């Protein structure tokens, strides 16, 4: 499709560590401020400085925020990748490039816009290091002119991005103006333009990791134990900043503890210790950390200890592609650890849900007395998303079943793992409870209802069946799936960050082929009853997910009886890039039109 007003995707190819992130944020914000729906995706290497990086900004008057495969404009700043970057472009694509690269000697079918970045920044600052950073703000000014992006909005955005640093703001505004002036000699690329509209009013721009951190802040987290790992580190760091800013008393006393652990085993161990003692405790990690946490995760499930674990998924197996996105930890996390272990999963599909699940996960973990895993991913967690403002949690915190001293005086004692309420969830006491019958012995070895050591087969089995009932009961407590459309023959099931691509694909299928497709986005495992109903209501159900093996489809097959399971068609794929709508559309059509 040809680019159009407020419907284009532009990419900046640069090297990491060159400060282009600020420039790209300014571009994103300027479009957003003009009321144009935007999304920004950073494709970066597992490296600190000097390797190729691509940042893609999509403007979409229809509000689509998934990755778009086709590029409508390229900014080529990196000589190393320029030839390859340019070769992939469709004819007619405009290319803004660093003039000394001499790219226009290549393809004649592209629109060439040479900018002498070094020459333009030379008069702005004496310091070479600073000039290098300013180069990137020059292309912002150039794009402002080429795309008719309003310069005052660009300057406003610079003010936001360099918040509180007047000198930096002034220098960057000057750089942007230099790029803008230089572009005065250019003929604008045909059809490509930004025009003010009104589709972002009241919205915010945020990444999923920050959203998750804000959610945890309002969830009343009191203990954070973590170990740095891409792409989850920024979640922990955002939470640390939140806690420092908003969770100190008038005298500076914190209402929280943060420990950077020596590894992920220790991080989850600390979280379990804190959860056992009654704190709202969490950690954030990615696939390799999840693998390391396996043994303690099983202990948490078996000893029934609340914990919240964020898994910001990246590409596996092993170290994999640490800075690319994937949804391939579904199976390993659902059943993390040996034995018959199962963990409730929350599957946020937007930054809004990163926030709400960020606080609800604590309610669920304490209600269910078990570790709850929240599966985000690099695309959701580290990229910039438009969102509705976060909504304050109105419901009081659910601290779960805890017996205090007065309860114990009334009851005379308790049995930690007795199913007194028929929901598989026992009552617990917290260490330090001032009653001689409050204590119990938490252990990962076989135990009876009173938490006593037991190797008896019938005691073991009864306990395991109760745990199964508890996990089964979680279906009704976890976030229900979101259904869109009804009555179509064909359905799609997806989760997490696949959502934007699936929503756009539905529109493509309807507009291009007249194919109506109903959509169910699952938001948790174990699945709600509505998931089964959805499959039962459709002849063919495509399961879209970003992994190789069709892990969501696998989980669905585990729960669905034979005739229903036969309706599932796995559309699993992953190359580490965020899913785009065209890939989904093509895959669905390949089946439907076969």
């Amino acid at each position, binding site marked *: 499709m040809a680019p159009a007003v407020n419907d284009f995707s532009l990419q900046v190819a640069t090297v990491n560590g060159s400060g282009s992130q600020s420039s790209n944020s300014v571009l994103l914000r300027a479009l957003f401020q003009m009321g144009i729906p935007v999304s920004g995706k950073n494709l970066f290497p597992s490296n600190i400085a000097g390797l190729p990086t691509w940042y893609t900004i999509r403007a979409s008057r229809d509000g689509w925020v998934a990755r778009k495969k086709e590029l409508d404009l390229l900014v080529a700043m990196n000589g190393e990748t320029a030839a390859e970057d340019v070769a992939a472009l469709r004819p007619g694509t405009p290319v803004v490039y660093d003039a000394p690269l001499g790219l226009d000697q290549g393809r004649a079918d592209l629109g060439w816009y040479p900018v002498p970045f070094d020459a333009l920044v030379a008069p702005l600052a004496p310091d070479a290091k600073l000039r290098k950073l300013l180069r990137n703000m020059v292309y912002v000014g150039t794009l402002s002119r080429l795309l008719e992006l309003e310069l005052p909005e660009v300057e406003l955005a610079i003010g936001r991005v360099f918040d509180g640093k007047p000198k930096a703001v002034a220098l960057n505004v000057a750089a942007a103006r230099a790029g803008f002036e230089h572009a005065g000699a250019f003929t604008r690329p045909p059809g490509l333009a930004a025009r003010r509209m009104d589709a972002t009013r009241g919205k915010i721009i945020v990444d999923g990791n920050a959203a998750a951190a804000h959610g945890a802040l309002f969830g009343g987290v*009191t203990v954070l134990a973590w170990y740095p790992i891409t792409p989850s580190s920024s979640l922990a760091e955002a939470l640390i900043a939140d806690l420092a800013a908003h969770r100190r008393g008038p005298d500076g006393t914190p209402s929280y503890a943060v420990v950077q652990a020596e590894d992920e085993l220790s991080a989850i161990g600390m979280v379990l210790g*804190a959860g056992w003692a009654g704190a709202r405790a969490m950690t954030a990690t990615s696939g390799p950390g999840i693998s390391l946490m396996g043994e303690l995760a099983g202990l948490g499930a078996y000893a029934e200890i609340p914990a919240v674990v964020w898994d910001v998924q990246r590409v596996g197996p092993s170290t994999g592609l640490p800075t690319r996105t994937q949804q391939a930890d579904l199976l390993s996390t659902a059943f993390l650890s040996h034995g018959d272990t199962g963990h409730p999963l929350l599957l946020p599909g937007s930054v809004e849900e990163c926030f709400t699940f960020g606080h609800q996960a604590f309610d669920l973990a304490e209600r269910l007395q078990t570790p709850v895993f929240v599966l985000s991913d690099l695309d959701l967690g580290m990229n910039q998303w438009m969102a509705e403002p976060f909504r304050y949690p109105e419901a009081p915190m659910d601290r779960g079943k805890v017996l205090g001293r007065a309860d114990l005086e009334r009851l005379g004692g308790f049995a930690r793992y007795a199913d007194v309420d028929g929901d598989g969830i026992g009552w617990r006491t917290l260490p330090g409870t001032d009653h001689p019958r409050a204590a119990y*012995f938490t252990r990962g070895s076989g135990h009876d209802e009173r938490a006593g050591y037991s190797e008896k087969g019938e005691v073991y089995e009864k306990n395991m069946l109760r745990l199964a009932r508890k996990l089964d009961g979680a279906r009704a407590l976890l976030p229900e799936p979101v259904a869109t459309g009804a009555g179509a023959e064909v359905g799609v099931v997806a989760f997490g960050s696949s959502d934007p691509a699936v929503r756009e694909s539905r529109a493509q299928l309807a507009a291009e082929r007249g194919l109506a497709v109903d959509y169910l986005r699952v938001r948790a495992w174990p699945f709600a009853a509505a998931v089964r109903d959805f499959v039962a209501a459709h002849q063919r159900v495509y399961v879209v997910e970003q992994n190789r093996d069709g892990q969501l489809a696998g989980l669905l097959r585990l729960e669905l009886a034979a005739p229903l399971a036969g309706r599932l068609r796995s559309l699993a794929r992953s190359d580490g890039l965020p899913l785009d709508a065209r890939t989904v559309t093509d895959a669905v059509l390949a089946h439907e039109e076969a």
Partner: protein
Amino acid sequence: MASTSTAPAAPAEPRVNRLGLPILEYRGGKTTLCAGCGHNAISERILEAYFDLGIPPEQVAKFSGIGCSSKSPAYFLGRSHAFNGVHGRMPAVATGALLANRTLHGVGVSGDGDTASIGMGQFVHLMRRNLPLVYVIEDNGVYGLTKGQFSATADPGSVLKGGAVADLPAIDTCALAIQLGAGFVARSFSGDKKQLSALLHAAIAHGGTALLDVISPCVTFNDHQGSTKSFAYVKAHDEPLQELSFVPALEEITLDHEPGTTAEVTLHDGSRLRLRKLEAGYDPRQRAAAVARLMGAQAAGEVLTGLLFVDPLAPTLVDRLGLPPEPLATLPPERVRPPRAVLDAINASLR
């Protein structure tokens, strides 16, 4: 019995501590360890210490990993919550729990396998952090529950029952802990009731991590000739640095020693540990000298016991984090969920 009374004598009132609790209230379940296991003696000393100090058992939290040692928290302080975790991960679990509730008295029991092999990573980082925790290693140089394999604290040259000879250097957990910045490091012997008791009292009174490596012979797998962790070997090679006595806070003491032979360490809670020096010149406040002395002892085949190092004022993890006096775990919602205005401000900053 030569008695003229016809009525039976009233049973003696059991001795109670300052809380009015008899020692029975500090006991745990019946031990399932081997008869004569050093660990059982350590359990006794632990529960006596909490009894003596008048600490409510409900205020104690017990932690352990996996192994014979780690079973032992079931055999003392039955009125205290306990967390028997997974192999080598006791320090992390204890850290989380004691940060969640800083008012608890934490006691962790681990073994030489649990600490010096699988749990080495967590052990060394706990020592660095100085979490308020009594950390007891029940050290017998051997894996008991898996029937007698060497652990990493086995001295080179020591022999297993089946004839295998340890050929790697032994890890000295005390030397490591001192080097890493721990604030209270001691070594003792399960068979030395008086020394172990004094050290445990002091460890509980200490404010940060108190590491006690207690040689605790395994009567089943490592108590034979050729073992350096047997009762006979430790008795023959024990080199106590001091004669120790614990003086509870508020209790007056009279000085009846020759000048220069006795030192006192004032602990976090105001109690004191008196050290009558048996080795002239040993000062347990000298970190580097303590490590050197331990290395010398190891080379000489001595079992150096007593208070090896102490720094009662070293800042703890709780100090560094500036935690409030009450448990984080049960802070009221208004202290842990910021008001609506904070979220409004966050939203505004993202527009």
